[in-house]
C-alpha cells in the first residue's frame, strides 16, 4: 500500500516536471516572440510610469521619486499578474488551439498536479520577467531606492502568488466552458482584481463598495507589502499585516480554484467540450 502511494507520488512529481519541461520548450521555441512581448510590456509600462513626470511638468507638486516608484510597482504587478493568468488560462486555451488538449486530459496526471505545475512555471517565469521589467524601467528614471528591501518584496510576491494561482485556476476553466470567449473573460477577471486593489493609487480613493472588495483581493496586500518593502524599507518581520491575509486568501483560493476547475472539467466532459476544435 505504502509502496503504491510512493510510486504514485513519484509519478505525479515526474508529471509535474513534464509540465514545467513543456513550458520551458515553448519559451525556447518562441524566444523571439518572448523578446517582442517584453518590448511591448516595457513600452506599456513606460506609458504609465511617465505619468508622474507628466504631473510635475504640468505644475503638479508631488514627490516624483516616490510617485514614480508607486506607479512602477503597480505596473510591474499588473504585468506579473497578467503572466500568471495568461499561463494558467493557456492550460486549456493553447492546448485546444494546438489540438493536444485531449492527450493531456486523458493522461494519468491529477488535475491538482497539472494546474500546480502550470502555476509554478507561471510564478518562475513571471518573477524573472517582472524582475527584468522593474530593472529596465528603473533604469529610465534613475530612481533612488536606498532603503528598499527587495528580499522582503520578493517574499511578499511569492506568498501572494499562491492566491494568484488559485484565482488563475478559476479563470483557467473559462476557455473550457466557453472555447470562443473564455480567454478574454480571464483578462476581465485580472482587470477587476486590480482595479479594486489600488494598482496605481491608494484604495482609500475608491468608492466604499470597491473598498470592501479590496479587502478580499490578494493584490491589495501584495501591492501594500511590496510598496512598504521598497519605498519604506520595511523588513519582512514588519509585514505580517500583509502576509497573514495573503496566507489566508491563498489557503482558501487554491482549493476553491481546484474545485471550480474540476466542476468545469466535468461540465466539459458531459457536454463534449473537451476536444480540440471547441
Amino acid at each position, binding site marked *: 500500500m505504502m509502496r503504491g502511494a510512493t*510510486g504514485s507520488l513519484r509519478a505525479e512529481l*515526474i508529471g509535474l516536471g513534464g509540465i514545467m*519541461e513543456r513550458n520551458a520548450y515553448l519559451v525556447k521555441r518562441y524566444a523571439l516572440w518572448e523578446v517582442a512581448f517584453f518590448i511591448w510590456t516595457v513600452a506599456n509600462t513606460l506609458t504609465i510610469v511617465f505619468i508622474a513626470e507628466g504631473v510635475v511638468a504640468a505644475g503638479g507638486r508631488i514627490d516624483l521619486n516616490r510617485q514614480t516608484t508607486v506607479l512602477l510597482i503597480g505596473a510591474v504587478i499588473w504585468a506579473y499578474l497578467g503572466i500568471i493568468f495568461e499561463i494558467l488560462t493557456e492550460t486549456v486555451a493553447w492546448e485546444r488551439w*494546438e489540438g493536444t488538449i485531449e492527450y493531456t486530459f486523458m493522461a494519468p496526471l491529477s488535475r491538482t498536479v497539472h494546474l500546480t505545475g502550470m502555476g509554478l512555471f507561471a510564478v518562475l517565469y513571471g518573477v524573472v520577467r517582472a524582475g527584468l521589467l522593474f530593472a529596465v524601467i528603473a533604469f529610465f528614471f534613475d530612481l533612488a531606492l536606498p532603503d528598499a528591501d527587495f528580499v522582503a518584496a520578493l517574499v511578499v510576491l511569492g506568498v501572494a502568488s499562491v492566491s494568484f494561482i488559485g484565482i488563475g485556476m478559476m479563470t483557467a476553466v473559462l476557455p473550457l466552458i466557453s472555447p470562443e470567449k473564455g480567454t478574454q473573460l480571464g483578462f476581465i477577471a485580472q482587470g477587476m482584481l486590480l482595479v479594486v486593489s489600488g494598482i496605481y493609487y491608494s484604495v482609500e480613493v475608491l468608492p466604499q463598495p470597491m473598498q470592501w472588495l479590496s479587502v478580499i483581493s490578494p493584490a491589495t496586500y501584495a501591492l501594500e507589502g511590496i510598496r512598504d518593502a521598497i519605498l519604506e524599507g520595511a523588513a519582512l518581520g514588519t509585514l505580517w499585516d500583509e502576509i497573514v491575509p495573503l496566507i489566508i486568501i491563498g489557503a482558501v483560493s487554491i482549493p476553491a480554484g481546484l474545485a471550480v476547475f474540476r466542476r468545469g472539467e*466535468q461540465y466539459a*466532459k458531459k457536454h463534449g467540450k*473537451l476536444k*480540440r476544435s471547441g
Partner: protein
Amino acid sequence: MSRTAAITPPSAGSLGPGAPAVEVAGLSKQFLRRDKRDRRAGRRTRKRRVPALTNVTFNIERGECVAILGQNGSGKSTLVRLLSTLLLPDGGSAHVFGHDVIKEPRAVQRLINRVSVEASFFKKMSATENLSYAARFYGMTAGDTRDEIPRILNKVAFATDRRTEPMENLSRGMQQKVALARALLTSPVLLLLDEPTTGLDPRSKLEVQDFIREVRSSQDSTILLCTHDLAEAEVLAERVGILDRGELLVLEPAEDLKRRYGAATLEDAFFVATGKTFEQEGAEEGGED
C-alpha cells in the same frame, strides 16, 4: 534495452484478473445541437438532443484487435473519447480491464493510449520534445526517455536527422508516425486507434499498418481500431463491427459478417447492413466524428 525495462508495466492487479480488455454495456451518449431547421426557417434556433451512441454493447478480449467501421458522424470518435475518459456517458457503462471509465478514470488512463486522425502536437516543438514531455505524464523520467524515444522513433522509421525539427515542418505521414510513437512510448495495454491512416498517402498508410501489425505481434496490446478503411479493418482485425447512427449493428469476424449479409466484400456487407454506401457522408449532426 527492452520496452518494458523503460517503464513499469501495469501490474497484474491493475489489469483486473479475468476481466475482458473492454466491456461496454448499454452505452449511450447524446449531444445538444442547435436545430438547423430553425435557422433555415429564420426562427430563433433551439437546441435539440442528437444521439451519438445508442445502447452500444460489446466486449473486446485481451490481445484482440477489433475494428469498428462507420461513416462520419456514426459515433466512432464518441466511443473512443468515452473510453479515453474524455466524455461522460448519459447511460450504460464501460470498463477497461475491469476498471470503470467513469469511477476509476486514473486507473483506466494508466492502461490506455490513443492515436487519432489528427496528429495533435505543439507544432513549434520537435518530435523529441513532444514525446519527452508527454512521457513524463505517464511517469517516465528523463533517464527512461533518453534511450527510449530514439528507439521508438527508429521503430516507426522516423528519420533521425529530423527529430529536432519543429513538427510544423514535417509531412502529415511523418507526424502520424510520431503520434504512433507517442502512443506506444507509454506501453499501453489498450491502444485506441481512431482513423490512424486517414489522409495518409498509400506508402505512409502501409507503413503505419505494418507497424500496428508489429505492435500486435511483439506486444500483448489490445487494439480498438475505428476506421473508414474497409481493407484496413479486414486485414488488421479479428472482428469487425458496423456502427451506424450511434448503433452497433453487428460485431463479428469479417467472414461471418459477409456471410450474414450474403455479401462478397465488406463494402457490400456495409451497404446491406446500413442501406448506405460507405462513401456517403453520415447525416447525423452529432459532430463527434
